[in-house]
């Protein structure tokens, strides 16, 4: 596609439910990143994919968080048993190679856990 696409744009879920957030990167971009942005905060790194592999998932805050990428393209971030502190904007970005190259961002998914 022309840009990074994320869905849904907004998600309201009840505490304890599971949610899936989707990211469609720019076609051909091998690197894919997930970040979390809490209100008034900067961007917190969650996980990085190179192709379908995740060399660094050290930013995932707990084992309730997982992510996968298939076909070197679409990525899904899953949050199980959501908690109120999971409320944030989840941003996805992709780039054409590691390090130094502009990362293109999606518009994010605003997750609200009630």
């Amino acid at each position, binding site marked *: 596609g022309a840009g990074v696409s994320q869905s849904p744009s907004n998600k309201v879920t009840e505490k304890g439910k599971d949610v899936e957030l989707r990211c469609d990167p720019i076609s051909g971009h091998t690197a894919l990143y997930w970040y979390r942005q809490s209100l008034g905060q900067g*961007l917190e790194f969650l996980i990085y994919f190179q192709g379908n592999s995740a060399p660094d998932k050290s930013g995932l805050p707990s084992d309730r968080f997982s992510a996968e990428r298939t076909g070197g393209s679409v990525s899904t971030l899953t949050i199980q048993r959501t908690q109120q502190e999971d409320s944030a904007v989840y*941003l996805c970005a992709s780039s054409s190679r*590691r*390090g*130094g190259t*502009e*990362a293109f*961002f999606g*518009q994010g998914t605003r997750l609200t856990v009630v």
Partner: protein
Amino acid sequence: AQTVTQSQPEMSVQEAETVTLSCTYDTSENNYYLFWYKQPPSRQMILVIRQEAYKQQNATENRFSVNFQKAAKSFSLKISDSQLGDTAMYFCASVSGGSNYKLTFGKGTLLTVNP
């Protein structure tokens, strides 16, 4: 590990004037890149300008320029002839040119351009 610090949570400027946003960083790498991203209310992160650490010349993109002081690990953004559309959150970020690919962001500066 890389760290990025933006010490100005909020700034304001009058339309057509010039404003400078501050950023300092810390890295043990010799090869790295620095960026300024803009995030308007639409949430879309947009690259404003980038600087390769090995280049001494400061990067410039139209009304946006940087003052890159490598020894001081400072990377400030100057916006000239500020426009209302420049109102946004501005994030400074760094990434290593080597195997550490995490784009590390500062906490951001909210810039408001007043008419």
